[in-house]
């Protein structure tokens, strides 16, 4: 699946997008943040306060307990500040 990062999450991770294949033990958006954080300290820094991070699956907002099965694009970003 494709993962995208925006704003300071993108800066901390150090890339705008990547393709990943998490193991089957990663069920939810929250699991995915934890799995990425365990891989590398750049992710751990980006996701150090997981409750602050917002996520979207296939262009729709989701909560951390949302299942990632079947998702083609997952995005992580800070609270939005548009308008």
């Amino acid at each position, binding site marked *: 699946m494709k993962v*995208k990062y*925006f*704003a*300071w999450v993108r800066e901390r991770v150090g890339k705008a997008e990547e393709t990943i294949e998490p193991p089957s033990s990663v069920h939810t958006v929250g699991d995915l943040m934890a799995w990425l954080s365990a891989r590398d300290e750049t992710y751990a820094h980006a996701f150090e306060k997981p409750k602050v991070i917002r996520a*979207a699956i296939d*262009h*729709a*907002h989701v909560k951390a307990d949302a299942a990632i099965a079947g998702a083609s694009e997952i*995005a992580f*970003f*800070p*609270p*939005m*500040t*548009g*308008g």
Partner: protein
Amino acid sequence: MRVPATIRIQQSDFDVAREIAALGADRTDIGAVVTFSGLCRGPEGGDAIAALTLEHYPGMAEAEIKRHVDEATSRWPLQGVTVIHRFGRIEPGQNIVLVVTASKHRQAAFEAAEFLMDYLKTSAPFWKQEETPDGKGWVEARAHDDAAAARWTKS
């Protein structure tokens, strides 16, 4: 009846008068047009801002705004809606966002414009970065924007 809706995410500026004219072109049934323009402020909390740079999530930005435009047209008797949100570097005094709503009577247009702006602030995937004399920094989300959006939640 399907309500004409225009949603554009663009780097270039927009012309408010032209957008109002476009929304009302070739029709005489509209009685009220409300517009909201959001501009880049220069002074912000004691800092002088040289510019804002807006990052967005292409694809989701359009989808999220459309979801809220669809909700607005189902909640209020609107005759037309236009939402334009810019991205890229924007200097003080320049336009950032435009919401235009049209209805037979003013109340629906006023309320729908406010509803759309409240949700654009908290749900549309855009992020502002400020340029100040001290460097660049991401703007933090404000609790009062969440509270403004929450008041539209149906009980």
